[in-house]
């Protein structure tokens, strides 16, 4: 109960802090909308070939990844840098709040914010691109699990970046440097068949691949087979395992001392 109380206190503080940074709130929702409008409405899918030659539904995980990947990475990374610069971790180290609890509170805020952004994004993608998704109860469940796990995973990665980057500027640069390749090389916007043969195995190394394929499998789209596991479950399980690893590493990396 006391842990719940601590996490709730940290959640409330971070929630208010985020909502009161209006620019951050605006761009958290506006950035993915721009992406959808550019790629979904202006560039459009071209059935005759080219960059956007796949079925519109194929790109849904990619659009979702824009918020699931970018927002936690930059938000948590920056928050870690702000906490370090303001000696907030020094203060928290002498309170009962553990580093894992702090990261959990940050993750919960991101889950709520990105959950809302993802809903908005999904509606816009379907409306603008005509993507047909088989949203059964199981599919919705898979979508929710994928979004929550994805957000948590990239919160953990953001904590790692924030802990090792020496400044807020460094966090932003590192976040972009990591997120951009992941966004386009994880079977999201670019099918692996368009990549050079020698590079394709690397797609399996990206955590975002498991998010994209987990969403796709859950919403009735074809995905590459997995050895001895039903891909509808397999990709989400790998995503959850990676989430556990990154959250644990992120919590451990958070500064406790100077």
């Amino acid at each position, binding site marked *: 109960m006391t842990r719940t109380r601590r996490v709730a*206190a*940290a959640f409330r503080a971070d929630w208010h*802090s985020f909502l009161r940074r209006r620019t951050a709130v605006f761009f958290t929702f506006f950035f993915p909308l721009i992406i959808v409008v550019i790629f979904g409405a202006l560039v459009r899918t071209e059935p005759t070939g080219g960059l956007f030659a796949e079925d519109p539904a194929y790109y849904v995980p990619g659009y979702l990844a824009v918020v699931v990947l970018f927002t936690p990475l930059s938000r948590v990374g920056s928050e870690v840098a702000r906490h370090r610069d*303001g*000696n907030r971790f*020094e*203060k928290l*180290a*002498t309170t009962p709040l553990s580093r894992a609890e702090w990261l959990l509170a940050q993750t919960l805020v991101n889950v709520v914010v990105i959950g809302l952004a993802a809903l908005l994004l999904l509606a816009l993608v379907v409306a603008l691109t005509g993507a047909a998704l088989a949203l059964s109860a199981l599919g919705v469940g898979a979508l929710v699990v994928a979004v929550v796990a994805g957000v948590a995973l990239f919160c953990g990665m953001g904590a790692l970046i924030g802990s090792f980057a020496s400044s807020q500027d460094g966090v932003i640069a590192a976040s972009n440097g990591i997120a951009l390749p992941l966004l386009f090389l994880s079977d999201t916007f670019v099918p692996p068949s368009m990549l050079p043969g020698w590079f394709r195995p690397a797609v399996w190394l990206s955590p975002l691949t498991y998010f994209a394929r987990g969403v796709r499998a859950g919403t009735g789209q074809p995905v590459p087979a997995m050895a001895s596991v039903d891909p509808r479950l397999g990709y989400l399980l790998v995503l959850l395992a990676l989430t556990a690893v990154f959250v644990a590493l992120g919590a451990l990396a958070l500064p406790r001392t100077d």
Partner: protein
Amino acid sequence: MTATLVAEDLRRAYGETVALDGVSLSVDEGEVFALVGPNGAGKTTLVRALTGTTDAEGSVTLFGNSPRDVDPERVGLLPQDFDPPERLTARELLAYYGGLYDDARNVERVLDDVGLREAAATWYENLSGGQRRRVCVGTALVNDPDLLFLDEPTTGIDPAGRRALWRLVEDLAAGGTTVLLTTHYMEEAHRLGDRVGLLADGRLVAVDDPDALVAEYGGDPRLVVETGADPAGLDLPSNVDARRVEGGEGNLTVRGIDPDDIGGVVDALDRAGATYESLTWTQPDLEDAYLELTSAGEGPAPTAGLGEESLTETVRGGDA
């Protein structure tokens, strides 16, 4: 007395820079220990070593446990340069930090303690520098700690706010809270500290009751006369040691003089037909002891007004 805090042979270096060089100290229950020292002396590193927020060699125990094993409910910390989330109100910040403890104090009471009831609904970023520091102090008090670390608690706070905070610390100590604070204000260290520790170059060069430090290291009382008179031309009374009279740069300094003998010096000036602008008699204070111990003494220059605790009397004007 039971020692609440015991540190032995603490050492910490950042590359080639030695921040702590074998510091040992013990603070008793209910004691206020004031740590003073020049910038870069190692005060903040020492606080961090004591709270377990830096990795230092040596040993530290708080209530008999290592800093990282001690019950955090019993410890409060105000870090130096602490900058909490800026878009929370003072009340929300105290509620946040209070929410991290099982048994936190009532937020409104803490706001009253730090004198921020009026500004409770103001975002931290919109508070004045002094108000911000008071919020930060409040975050160290929300759990009603038995051991309180305050790293420069009154920096940026106006004199009235500073005195209010001093009263608060005195009340806490009277209630049994052990306090370790760092400060650049000698007046603060003298008033609050049951003992004062002077840190220089990472070493604790003196620890004692502040009055004892002043008596041992503060030097003699002195009279500074703003005059161009040459000391050699003065017929000083016999109870003023002429060897301890110095002149130059428009001042005449008489060291080791009692207040009762000031009249004799004035008479000597009158007899010599010398004019003077002011006379300032200064009793040594903690600042003098600090300057002596840190080898940063200013020599014979007037020091009136540097330390408010010193007994300083200035007489303006005066013609022979």
